[in-house]
């Protein structure tokens, strides 16, 4: 055990002496959290809109003004030609086209219902979906208001006058920062730790120092623990730093127990650490290690549920996410930080992560060889 202590001591000595890596380890999480949390935002403002109002009545104007009053839409042009409207979608000038047919007001008052046409530019599906949602909201709002202002209509209520109201639980104001920060934190910590571990070990190989260690009585498990412990401690430190920024800058709710958060981080970190280890066993140079680590981490980040919900992925992708440690982390952080889940609620995530960590490290130890054939 004393040998491990010497190895850890040596590792920290080297880490604190590295004038490039140390600041990077501190600056990278802070910078990424600030940047990504503000930039990665699902809210879409100023959707470019064109309105074709062929009715030019009081009702149609009221509808138009509802759209122009919304912060989500910006009315660029009006006109009377549907063809022109379609063309401006084709030229990517507008995101949404609203067409109000002639006799809109007359139909509304006389028959109790009337139609409008919304055409969405779905080149960016997310944007189109959001535009549709916002527009639907405005139309519902218009309906309700119009009915209340025209008593004629209340006498003949339109079909299905069920009003849907909703509230967003766990994130009542649909604050995307709240949603993104815990995920980004997990992504950053995983990235840093996986890279650091892989590169550090390959560096020993590149510099030849691993050979010098190999002719000493240091045992395999001592060497691995000597690498494991320092990076594990660093990961907990970065986590603390990230949570502090999350709380101070973004005011993310910390509903769950902090002990649980750190307990989970402590159990989660061996997953990415072990992965870094495993990669280093198959890389001869830091360059190889870098690209291999990047290959895995990039897939993990894209599929971790941070940018697209896991539930909307095809089934095979959802199944494959069993192997994605970051997916567990993102899910766990959201549940505990935003929902205030307790251990009973998240043990379905906790135990797999524990098994994952043990598994990947066992594999790393097994593939690490001191004596080469």
């Amino acid at each position, binding site marked *: 055990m004393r040998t491990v202590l010497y190895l850890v001591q*040596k590792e920290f000595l*080297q880490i604190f002496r590295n004038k490039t890596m140390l600041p990077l380890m501190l600056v990278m999480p802070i910078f990424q959290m600030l940047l990504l949390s503000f930039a990665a935002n699902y809210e879409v403002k100023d959707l470019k809109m064109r309105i074709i109002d062929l009715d030019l009545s009081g009702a149609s104007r009221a509808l138009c003004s509802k759209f122009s009053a919304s912060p989500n839409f910006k009315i660029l042009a009006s006109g009377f030609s549907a063809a022109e409207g379609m063309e401006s979608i084709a030229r990517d000038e507008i995101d949404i086209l609203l067409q109000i047919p002639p006799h809109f007001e007359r139909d509304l008052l006389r028959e109790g219902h009337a139609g409008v046409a919304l055409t969405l530019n779905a080149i960016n599906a997310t944007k189109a979906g959001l535009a549709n949602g916002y527009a639907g909201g405005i139309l519902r709002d218009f309906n309700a208001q119009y009915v209340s202002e025209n008593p004629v209509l209340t006498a003949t209520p339109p079909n299905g006058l069920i009003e849907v109201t909703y509230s967003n639980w766990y994130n009542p104001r649909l604050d995307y920062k709240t949603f993104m920060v815990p995920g980004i934190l997990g992504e950053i910590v995983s990235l840093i730790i996986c890279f650091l571990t892989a590169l550090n070990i390959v560096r020993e190989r590149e*510099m030849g120092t691993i*050979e010098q*260690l190999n*002719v000493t009585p240091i045992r395999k498990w001592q060497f691995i623990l000597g690498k494991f412990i320092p990076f594990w401690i660093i990961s907990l430190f970065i986590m603390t730093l990230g949570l502090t920024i999350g709380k101070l800058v973004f005011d993310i709710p910390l509903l769950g127990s902090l002990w649980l958060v750190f307990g989970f981080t402590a159990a989660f970190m061996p997953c990415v650490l072990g992965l870094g280890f495993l990669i280093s066993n198959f890389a001869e140079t830091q360059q190889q290690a870098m690209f291999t680590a990047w290959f895995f981490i990039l897939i993990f980040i894209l599929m971790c549920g941070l940018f697209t919900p896991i539930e909307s992925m095809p089934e095979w992708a959802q199944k494959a996410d069993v192997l994605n440690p970051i997916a567990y982390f993102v899910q766990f952080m959201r549940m505990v930080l935003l929902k205030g889940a307790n251990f009973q609620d998240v043990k379905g995530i906790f135990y797999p992560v524990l098994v994952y960590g043990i598994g990947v490290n066992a594999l790393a130890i097994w593939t690490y060889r001191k004596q080469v054939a």
Partner: protein
Amino acid sequence: MQAIEVQQITKSYGDLKALDELTFSVASGELFGLIGPDGAGKTSLLRILATLIVPDKGSARIQQHDVVGDYKYLRNILGYMPGRFSLYQDLSIEENLAFFASVFGTSIADNYHLIQDIYVQLEPFRKRRAGALSGGMKQKLALCCALIHKPEVLLLDEPGTGVDPVSRKEFWDMLKRLKEWGITILVSTPNMDEAELCDRVGLLHKGKLLALDTPANIRNSYDKPLYEVRSQDMYRLIGDLRQMPGAYSCYAFGEYAHLTLLHPIDGAEITILQYLESRQHRDMEVRATRAGVEDCFIASTLDQ
């Protein structure tokens, strides 16, 4: 007692046979030199003895322990200094030494007597990072780190490479002093002149031993007359001498050409001078000389 016993060791890398059924042994307390050009298989052999790689065939024992089966034990009693500087460049002299002492479960103070001669030269720079040291200093530090746990057998892979002649001489003086502590030393080098500094040498070429003896015996085994020759045009001289009747071999040797004759000839110097004159050479010099280890090495590679 034999400290190192190598039995028919073979190691191949693909089609390339780095070591070909190599057999030799090193006596306890001996300073043994493994001499051979680059690619002779020196490093492969040292890495096998250092328990870093496994031979394809054959076996090797150090202090009666097998290098494959007993590697865990051997790692406690071996000191290995790789050809390439392999200490932590970002740690200081002191930190490197303390680290390697601690992983062997000892301390600098415990074995200070072993490294004292070398370490006094490093001590003024002990806070300096290993990466910032000169080649000679790096080598001295590496030797200290390989010695700090008082190894019974020391394996040094080309310690003279990349080091200036003065430092190299100092280094060999240190090795001589280490012998007094009863440490068996196996040192590999491509420099034939360093062979003279060893108790016994093995000449390694293409994975095989060409000769295995004391430097003096190897020199004395040279049975053909040898002359050192020079003239104004050295390049043409070597070509001409090779074509001389009765010449066995000729090659450049420092500022002279070494000419070996097939058989002794009476008044050989005169014969050589006359031959060279007929080839329009000027400012010639011919002198009989004694063969060195390098001559023996070249002769044995020619015989093959």
